[in-house]
């Protein structure tokens, strides 16, 4: 459990978008995933999650920094033999059947046909596609594609499994089933790095998570630690000067009712700052309460704070 499966050091990725203009998708990102754990990289669309996974599987090159997979530089193409990857919105040769796809993928890993066939059977059963194994992929539904994609990513029995938004585009029932499959894989001792914008649902199945926003990890840790950090405060006050309210609102989630304003803050320091601002502008504090933030709320607070920094 203590071994490091994946180490990302100071990873930066910039894209040229037009003459001289560059956009930074990843910004000096540091991350570590321990072997045998399930790590959730959570963040909104465009946060840099897919870019990171693309770098990890060699689809894209970093501008700066390095990634080590089981202590080996990712740039070495042979490292990919130890990785299983499911891309967002998977797309395969649609004239192959599900079983053929797995056997075809097995060849790239040098797996003997008999062994490959045996593994394909097991995996099709794991992802619940035994019935559809002889059906052509072009006849698969979105959810079946996701399932066959997971099976394909597992054909080489990878030590590290990278799943890019495995639940994207699925209805809640299928999302739950896919999460069930991923949890079962984690139980088999696989190291899993999955990305998602479904904070609560995905976060709840991970051993640890990191929140990524604008290419930077804003928070990381075990889920329980993050939730502990989420012991926030709720400050309710009354104030006449609207200008002050705007600056507070810009940073934190707030609501207004019956002339009273309630602001939710993630920690004591922020709470003290608000109290000080309100009092200095002639306002009055009505009450201060403790508040347990959910992961979703922590995430929203982070995003709001990052947006207005």
């Amino acid at each position, binding site marked *: 459990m203590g071994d490091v499966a994946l180490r990302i050091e100071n990873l930066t990725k910039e894209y040229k978008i037009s003459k001289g203009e560059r956009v930074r998708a990843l910004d000096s990102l540091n991350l570590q995933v321990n072997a045998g754990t399930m790590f959730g990289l959570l963040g909104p669309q465009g946060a840099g999650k897919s870019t990171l996974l693309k770098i990890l599987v*060699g*689809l*894209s090159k970093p501008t700066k920094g390095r990634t080590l997979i089981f202590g080996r530089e990712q740039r070495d*193409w042979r490292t*990919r033999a130890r990785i299983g990857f499911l891309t967002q919105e*998977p797309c*395969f040769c649609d004239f192959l059947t599900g079983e053929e796809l797995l056997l075809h993928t097995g060849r790239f*890993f040098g797996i003997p046909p008999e062994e490959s066939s045996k593994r394909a059977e097991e995996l099709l059963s794991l992802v619940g596609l035994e019935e559809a194994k002889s059906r052509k992929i072009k006849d698969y539904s979105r959810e079946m594609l996701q399932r066959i994609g997971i099976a394909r990513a597992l054909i080489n029995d990878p030590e590290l499994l990278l799943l890019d938004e495995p639940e994207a585009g699925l209805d809640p029932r299928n999302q739950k089933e896919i999460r069930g499959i991923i949890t079962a894989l984690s139980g088999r001792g696989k190291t899993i790095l999955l990305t998602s914008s479904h904070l609560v649902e995905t976060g709840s199945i991970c051993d640890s998570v990191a929140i990524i926003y604008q290419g930077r990890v804003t928070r990381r840790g075990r889920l329980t630690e993050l939730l502990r950090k989420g012991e926030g405060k709720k400050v309710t006050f009354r104030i006449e000067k609207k200008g002050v309210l705007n600056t507070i609102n810009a940073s934190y989630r707030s609501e207004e009712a019956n002339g009273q304003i309630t602001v939710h803050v993630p920690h004591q320091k922020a709470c003290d700052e608000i109290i000080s601002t309100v009092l200095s502008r002639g306002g009055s504090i009505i009450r201060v309460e403790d508040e347990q933030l959910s992961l979703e709320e922590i995430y929203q607070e982070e995003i709001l704070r990052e947006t207005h920094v």
Partner: protein
Amino acid sequence: MAKVTCRETLRKKPLIILFIASLIFIGSAQLFFLLKAGIPLKTMQAVWLKSLIGFSTLLAVYLGACLLFAEEGKNKLYSLLSLPVRRGEIVIGKFIGGAVALLLLLLLMGIVFIAVTGLKQFSSLLIWQAVLLASWEMLLVFSLSLMLSTLATPLLNISLSLFVSLAGNISASLKFLGNQIDNLVVSFLAKIFYYFVPHLHRFDITSNVIAGEEVTFSLIWKDLAYGFYYMALFLTIGIILFSRKEL
């Protein structure tokens, strides 16, 4: 991968439509000649060869343009490139698979020709040599188009490949034009094209077929070696570009 590419190629609808169009054209043209008495055998062969070169070029250009960056977008490529395989191997695999598929289509064009006109059309060595060189030209154009697909959109790729194919087929005239014309710019451009574009006219010996002039084996070997050199060059450039490409 080559096997899957070959299967994938033979399922591409635009390619199949183009191929069927070529069969209809070849079959009907030959049928017309048969019904119209007095058309010499060599003329029929020449028309077939020209159709073969033209259609095979179109098939090769289209296939090269869409094989790496298919209509499904990049996701298919992501799945492939995440496997422990070098990008160069993917280019080579795609080339081999595509080449086998193209040769199969060419074979079918030959079968249709024989079915309409009979086996006697293939009685001379010259026609076999012409078919061999036409196949080689097709593979060369395919490698060019595959290389261009690593840096251009399919539409631009098709336009460029067709332009180079055309220029390559008239490259002998380009040199002549470059020497004769007074306009410096046109003369310069004609010379540039002459020296940088593969001389595809070397692979078209239709005039020899019409005139019944034998082509020596040494000349055939030279042409094959020339074509191989360009194929290797285009594929090498393609591999380098594809290996550096950000996806």
